[in-house]
């Protein structure tokens, strides 16, 4: 077992911290600890992206889930010192963007002071903690970028960051391909470590249908109900589908935030709002199809959770990550147009044997690939392999 301490660096970390990457980091840290690896977390004292700079956690040494966490004061961007020391040959808007995000000068000073004593793993590609941290530690640095195909990914700072570290750890094959393409890196510098999910959940679909008084086919979506998850497209396509077919299916919309439904969908969409984990897994189990039309996914936990309950998924064909998952698992279909969306729904709702088999193939794949213990072993191999 490696004796060197792995130090995870990210802008926010803690029990009250929201965010997909932050939750992923917390579970990974826990799995590494259980695997017997010495691990520490360094973060700012702010809570999360909702209040990115305000002090929330105590500064200094703390402990989360039995793991030491060192917190530093948060500030915008990074001090001039790093620009002078490492240079910054990128367009001014990219500098301004970097300076507008949560960083910590004190954290970076501490990284510089202990540079050669640890292995550093930076989470989230856009932040000053990762960009400058990676410049400071060089070959001792690793990056979990949680990258997706969005405009920031094409910034020259992103390319520099991806090329500065020893290895970039991808969450999925789709993300690996994107990283290799953007940074012109060979695939062996971008190992797919993946993500795990909690595999113990058992959804009760019949209970969910009884509780909500639902019969007939159900299509389930959960996540932010806005453009970031391409949810308006799902609503528009579903409305069109209802117009072209008998009102044969109900759309279940779970997730935080208000749901602004057009009049045509008032009776065909059930607003589940924010759900408990058990209620969410009951909904996956009850659904005939789980639909995730988002384009900017770097892993998509919800797709894995749907498969865990044996439900086939429908994703957007322009999201390389979720399409790659569907291909690997043989557990779902994808659409690039309304006509394909309609053909997918017709097939999955009319041919129940095919839908069931896709769901169970997805379930078998998730049980095989998404165990946190295995993710921790892949992570350890990626960080300690010379």
């Amino acid at each position, binding site marked *: 077992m490696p004796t060197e301490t792995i130090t995870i660096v990210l802008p926010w970390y803690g029990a009250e911290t929201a965010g997909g990457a932050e939750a992923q980091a917390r579970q990974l840290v826990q799995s590494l600890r259980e695997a017997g690896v010495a691990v520490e977390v360094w973060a700012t004292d702010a809570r999360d992206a909702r209040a990115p700079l305000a002090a929330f956690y105590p500064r200094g040494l703390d402990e989360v889930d039995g793991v030491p966490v060192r917190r530093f004061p948060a500030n915008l961007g990074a001090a001039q010192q790093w620009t002078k020391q490492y240079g910054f040959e990128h367009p001014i808007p990219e500098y301004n963007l970097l300076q507008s995000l949560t960083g910590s000068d004190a954290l970076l000073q501490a990284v510089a002071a202990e540079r050669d004593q640890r292995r550093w793993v930076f989470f989230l590609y856009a932040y000053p903690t990762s960009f400058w941290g990676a410049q400071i530690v060089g070959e001792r640095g690793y990056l979990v970028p949680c990258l997706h195909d969005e405009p920031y990914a094409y910034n020259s700072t992103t390319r520099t960051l991806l090329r500065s570290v020893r290895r970039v750890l991808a969450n999925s094959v789709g993300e690996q391909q994107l990283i290799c393409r953007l940074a012109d890196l060979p695939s062996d510098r971008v190992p797919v470590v993946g993500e795990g999910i909690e595999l113990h959940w058992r959804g009760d679909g019949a209970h969910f249908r009884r509780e909500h008084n639902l019969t007939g086919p159900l299509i389930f979506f959960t996540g932010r109900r806005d453009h970031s998850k391409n949810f308006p497209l799902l609503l528009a396509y579903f409305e069109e589908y209802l117009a072209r077919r008998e009102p044969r299916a109900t759309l279940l919309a779970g997730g935080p935030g208000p749901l602004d439904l*057009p009049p045509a969908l008032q009776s065909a969409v059930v607003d589940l709002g924010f759900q408990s984990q058990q209620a969410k897994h009951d909904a996956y189990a009850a659904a005939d199809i789980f639909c995730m039309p988002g384009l900017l996914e770097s892993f998509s936990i919800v797709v894995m959770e749907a498969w865990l309950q044996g439900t086939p998924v429908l994703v957007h064909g322009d999201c390389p990550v979720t399409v790659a998952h569907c291909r690997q698992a043989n557990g779902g279909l994808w659409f690039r147009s309304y006509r394909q969306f309609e053909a997918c729904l017709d097939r999955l709702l009319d041919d129940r044997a095919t839908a069931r088999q896709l769901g169970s193939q997805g379930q078998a794949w998730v049980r095989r690939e998404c165990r946190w213990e295995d993710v921790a072993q892949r992570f350890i191999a990626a960080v300690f392999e010379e």
Partner: protein
Amino acid sequence: MSTLNVDELMREIEAAAAQAGAEPQFPQLAMQQLLPALREYHAVEPRPPLIGRTRYERLWVRINQLLRRIAAHAVEPAVAQQNESNAAVLDALEQLLRADAGLRAVVTAQRSARVTTPQEERNAH
């Protein structure tokens, strides 16, 4: 049981979609996409906050404050006019989206009343 290959299934799906006729248009999606940015930026702030952490930045803030005071008579009326115009555009877009949603509800109800099966729809084309 043999593995069901999704690439093979997708070939069938794509063939069915290609035979299904012309792709419907969704103009509401383009309009909806404009809303978040318009809602966030429709009111332009003529005096955004100036922050100076270092001595050099604080000096720069003082110079900016002075320049703003000198230029205020020319800038602020124009900003007020622009804000009025932006508010009108936002209001128009919201009304348009509401009217479009209402109209689509009527159309959806009428079309659902004469439902076709996938096979009937393919035959119609």
